[in-house]
């Protein structure tokens, strides 16, 4: 006896973890091993469920709750009550039989591990759906079943119809799942909790809530997509491209029952209102009649069974929609019966396909002589489907007819419903007759790919088991399924289920008459179709929901294409114009609506230098725009802008920024100059006058807007968190330069990311310039002047000293790793230009890449070293050892981090500069 808190998670966990793992591992050895492994896991799960069953039969459900994400109301709550028990036994029992069947069905070319692992995943997810007590958890498992179904339908992934069927199933059930989630959220809001146990208690409150109709419709959409009800039914026939074990398991017994399970599970909460009754019964009835009608005309064996499944699910939905207590009993009963005979019929169809090679009923005729055993089983199962007495289908159909006939007292709509039921019943008999007659009798087989013969012994065992169940339940229902159906129905309807008897013979009642009528009508219909209409020549009509769906998808795709071509046609300036336009529209409208005013803070005094700087900045920026086609001129103006910005930084108390900006400006200018050696010196005119006007207007608006925004921001007071850094920089960070301490210590992780970007840039440059050949050199090219060469030679050691000085003083004065790295890079570049070395360009590139990488590793190592002291990543330490001659020497580990930054910056910048210098100079002699 396993404790309940362990049992329920085990039921799901066994297939989820052990099943998938063992299935795929054993699958590498052989299909037999994988089948045995998964069968063992499934049997264990079933044993756990059965061991927990006795408590359920006493009327008290087993509930287990573990918190998961309390903030969104998601908890792992599992509940085993009558309905869950019924479904769990169904899922696991039929699962076992499907595994046995699949072992013989899968051919030598089909990878077994993949199949059984996906099957295990599906079983676990389906069990999760039926056992979940938390609605959000149910939604999670619901989506996993959709995903597992997609994987299983697409198992033969080299077949186009399998891929299309899998995609369609996923799209439809996925969309339904989304709707269901929305409905679940609404119900949770209305009830105040996502636990079904709690929601049932406040059911009246939920039904009276204004959100109830929306929630109901959304959840019903989810249920109807999953259970292939009209008009969401078209994915089910397409899913018949799956291997037959999958069809027998998912698309007859378990997955398609998930939608019905949801309606049954939420019936205490959602049911009982007129909206529920009308919608559910209408959809169910329409599906019942429509599915049965189409099934008669299908030539594909599995297609007939698919539409028949749809029809029976419609029947069950109709029963659930009716508000009478006995209809729930009938619904639950029929769920079990349908699963049994439908799974066995699918398996029989699979056997026929496996042994004969085709599923086309126009060619499969007269197989009775060749496979009598399979034929007997199939005929019994089909009879159960048609509702022949002494089989389980008859019993639940009787109850169904009783409920339908009770409607005829309810006025015109009731009569209509009853008539529709009768019609659908006749069609059901007709297609069952077609299945039996057209496959096993009706002449001789035509053009069969293989000679028909019986299936292997053990492949028929699952079918035998299921057919035996059909017969047993049909003969003695009270003993076999009576108790479990009872406890399941009570879980749906709650207390107050009146006494009933599921007996074999109720006397000459109206339902019996209706049965007889349906039989007669169906038989006549089939005979007429075969003889008068010549059924085999029937061609299905061009209109179907599937075509509508595909047309809808095609329309959606072409719409997306049209929009993309208009907006993202590849021209950068159009994309930028759109971006800026949207920014202007959104931000501008918000600012204008809110009213932007100048704030209270006083203005700083205006100095003459400031005026000059501002004007030169504006003029230079305009210069860049006007002369943008003359690249050198634009570069000069851009440099002016950068210099003015640097002076601005200096004036407004940002010395570190000023230094960095200055050096970056120098490096950028050198880079562009070197690139211009290869690139054209002036560009062609790309845009027309209209585009210029558009761009100018946008730019003007953006400038004015940003300026106004900046003014508004700067004149308003603000509280910041900088006081923390200012106070703690010296005592805890060991440095007086707060900006540097911020970069290497407080916000070291951001800087670590930044040097990672630098190293990535370096690698990108190496990759981009990998195959670029430098051009043929101009023989009249001037060599660097002698003065320049001599100056460069003396400049380099000086620059190195300056760079080291700047690096070391960084922690207490303006400076730091960035500036130092850039200064060294410029000095090294001077030397490289002055004394160009043509050989070894590749080695140079490798050397600088390694430098950059070394910088990254040192920085990372400094951070990781903190773990050795039990501190989080990048915690720094500082000390002040007193050395004999030097005195107190302030040391911090952040300096090591700064060294990493230095090397990374140096490596990347040198790599870029040297690569460009090489690409624009003479070619290597060795190449």
């Amino acid at each position: 006896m396993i404790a309940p808190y362990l049992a329920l998670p085990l039921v799901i966990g066994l297939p989820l973890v052990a099943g998938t793992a063992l299935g795929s591992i054993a699958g590498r050895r052989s299909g037999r091993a994988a089948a045995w492994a998964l069968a063992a896991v499934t049997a264990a799960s079933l044993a756990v469920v059965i061991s927990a069953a006795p408590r359920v039969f006493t009327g008290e459900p087993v509930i287990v709750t573990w918190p998961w994400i309390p903030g969104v109301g998601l908890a792992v709550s599992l509940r085993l009550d009558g309905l869950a028990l019924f479904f769990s036994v169904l899922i696991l029992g039929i699962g076992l039989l499907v595994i046995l069947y699949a072992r013989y069905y899968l051919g030598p070319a089909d990878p077994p591990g993949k199949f059984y692992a996906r099957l295990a995943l599906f079983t676990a997810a389906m069990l999760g759906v039926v056992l979940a007590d938390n609605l959000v958890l149910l939604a999670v498992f619901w989506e996993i079943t959709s995903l597992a179904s997609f994987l299983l339908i697409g198992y033969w992934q080299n077949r186009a119809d399998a891929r299309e069927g899998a995609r369609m199933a996923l799209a439809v059930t996925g969309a339904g799942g989304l709707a269901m989630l929305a409905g679940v959220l609404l119900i949770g809001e209305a009830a105040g909790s996502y636990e079904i146990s709690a929601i049932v208690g406040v059911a009246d409150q939920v039904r009276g809530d204004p959100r109830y109709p929306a929630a109901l419709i959304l959840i019903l959409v989810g249920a109807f997509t999953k259970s292939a009800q009209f008009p969401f039914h078209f994915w089910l026939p397409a899913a018949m491209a799956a291997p037959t074990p999958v069809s027998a398991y998912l698309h007859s017994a378990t997955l398609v029952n998930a939608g019905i399970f949801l309606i049954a599970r939420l019936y205490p909460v959602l049911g009982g209102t007129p909206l529920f009754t009308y919608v559910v019964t209408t959809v169910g009835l329409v599906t019942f009649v429509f599915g049965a009608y189409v099934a008669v005309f299908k030539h594909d064996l599995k297609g007939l069974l698919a539409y028949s499944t749809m029809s029976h699910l419609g029947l069950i939905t109709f029963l659930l929609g009716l508000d009478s207590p006995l209809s729930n009993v009938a619904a639950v009963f029929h769920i079990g019966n349908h699963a049994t005979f439908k799974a066995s019929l699918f398996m029989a169809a699979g056997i026929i396909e496996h042994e004969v090679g085709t599923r086309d009923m126009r060619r499969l005729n007269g197989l009775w002589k060749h496979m009598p055993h399979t034929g007997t089983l199939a005929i019994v199962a089909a009879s159960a489907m048609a509702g022949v007495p002494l089989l389980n289908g008859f019993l639940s159909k009787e109850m169904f007819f009783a409920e339908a006939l009770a409607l005829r007292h309810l006025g015109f709509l009731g009569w209509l419903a009853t008539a529709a039921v009768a019609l659908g019943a006749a069609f059901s008999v007709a297609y069952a007759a077609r299945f039996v007659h057209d496959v096993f009798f009706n002449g001789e087989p035509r053009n069969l790919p293989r000679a028909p013969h019986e299936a292997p012994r053990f492949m028929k065992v699952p079918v035998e088991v299921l057919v035996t169940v059909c017969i047993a339940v049909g003969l003695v229902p009270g003993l076999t399924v009576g108790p479990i159906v009872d406890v399941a129905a009570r879980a749906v309807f709650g207390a107050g289920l009146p006494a009933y008897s599921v007996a074999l013979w109720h006397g000459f009642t109206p339902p019996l008459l209706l049965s007889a009528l349906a039989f007669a009508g169906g038989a006549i219909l089939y005979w007429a179709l075969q003889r008068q209409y010549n059924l085999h020549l029937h061609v299905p009509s061009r209109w179907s929901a599937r075509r509508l769906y595909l047309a809808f998808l095609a329309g959606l795709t072409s719409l997306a294409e049209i929009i993309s071509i208009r907006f993202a046609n590849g021209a950068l300036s159009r994309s930028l114009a759109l971006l800026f336009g949207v920014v202007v529209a959104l931000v501008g409208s918000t600012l204008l609506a809110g009213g932007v005013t100048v704030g209270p803070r006083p203005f700083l005094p205006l100095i003459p230098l400031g005026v000059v700087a501002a004007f030169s900045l504006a003029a230079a920026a305009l210069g860049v725009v006007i002369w943008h086609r003359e690249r050198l001129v634009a570069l000069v103006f851009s440099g002016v802008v950068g210099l003015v910005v640097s002076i601005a930084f200096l004036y407004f108390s940002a010395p570190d920024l000023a230094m960095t900006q200055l050096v970056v400006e120098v490096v950028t200018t050198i880079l562009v100059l070197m690139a211009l050696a290869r690139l054209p010196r002036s560009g062609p005119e790309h845009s027309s006058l209209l585009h210029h006007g558009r761009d100018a207007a946008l730019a003007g608006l953006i400038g004015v807007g940003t300026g106004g925004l900046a003014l508004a921001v700067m004149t308003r007071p603000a509280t910041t968190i900088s006081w923390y850094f200012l106070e703690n920089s010296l005592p805890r960070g060991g440095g007086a330069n707060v900006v540097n301490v911020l970069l290497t210590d407080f916000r070291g992780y951001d800087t670590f990311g930044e040097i990672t970007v630098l190293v990535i840039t370096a690698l990108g440059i190496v990759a981009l310039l990998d195959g670029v050949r430098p051009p043929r050199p101009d023989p009249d090219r001037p060599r660097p002047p002698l003065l320049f060469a001599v100056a460069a030679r003396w400049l380099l050691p000086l620059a190195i000293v300056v760079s080291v000085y700047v690096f070391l003083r960084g922690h207490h004065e303006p400076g730091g790793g960035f500036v130092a790295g850039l200064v060294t890079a410029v000095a090294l570049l001077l030397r490289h230009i002055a004394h160009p070395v043509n050989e070894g360009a590749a080695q140079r590139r490798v050397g600088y890449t390694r430098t950059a990488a070394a910088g990254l590793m040192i920085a990372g190592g400094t951070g990781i070293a903190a773990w050795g002291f039990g501190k989080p990543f990048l915690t720094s330490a500082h000390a002040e050892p007193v050395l004999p001659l030097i005195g107190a020497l302030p040391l911090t580990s952040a300096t090591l981090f700064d060294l990493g930054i230095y090397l990374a910056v140096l490596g990347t910048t040198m790599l870029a500069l040297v690569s460009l210098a090489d690409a624009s100079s003479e070619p290597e002699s060795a190449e």
Partner: protein
Amino acid sequence: MLLSYAVNLFIVATGRLTVGRPPIVAAGVTAYADPLPQALVLTAIVIGLATTVFAIVLALAASVPSVDDAVDVPASPREASPRR
């Protein structure tokens, strides 16, 4: 590039402009410039350098098969060069 200059200035300006009080801790000084935007902008300047470098190298690598260094790629084969 011009855009990154502008954005950097803007971010520094959100720290409210102060003159002559760099964020270097010294005895006797009470008010400092806001160091946090400056640290952010320093990172931005360096990454801006990396981006500029990459863009220049990209232009160079793209220019190798042809003389025109335009980076506009037409989205549909019908257009030789897309309309701006």
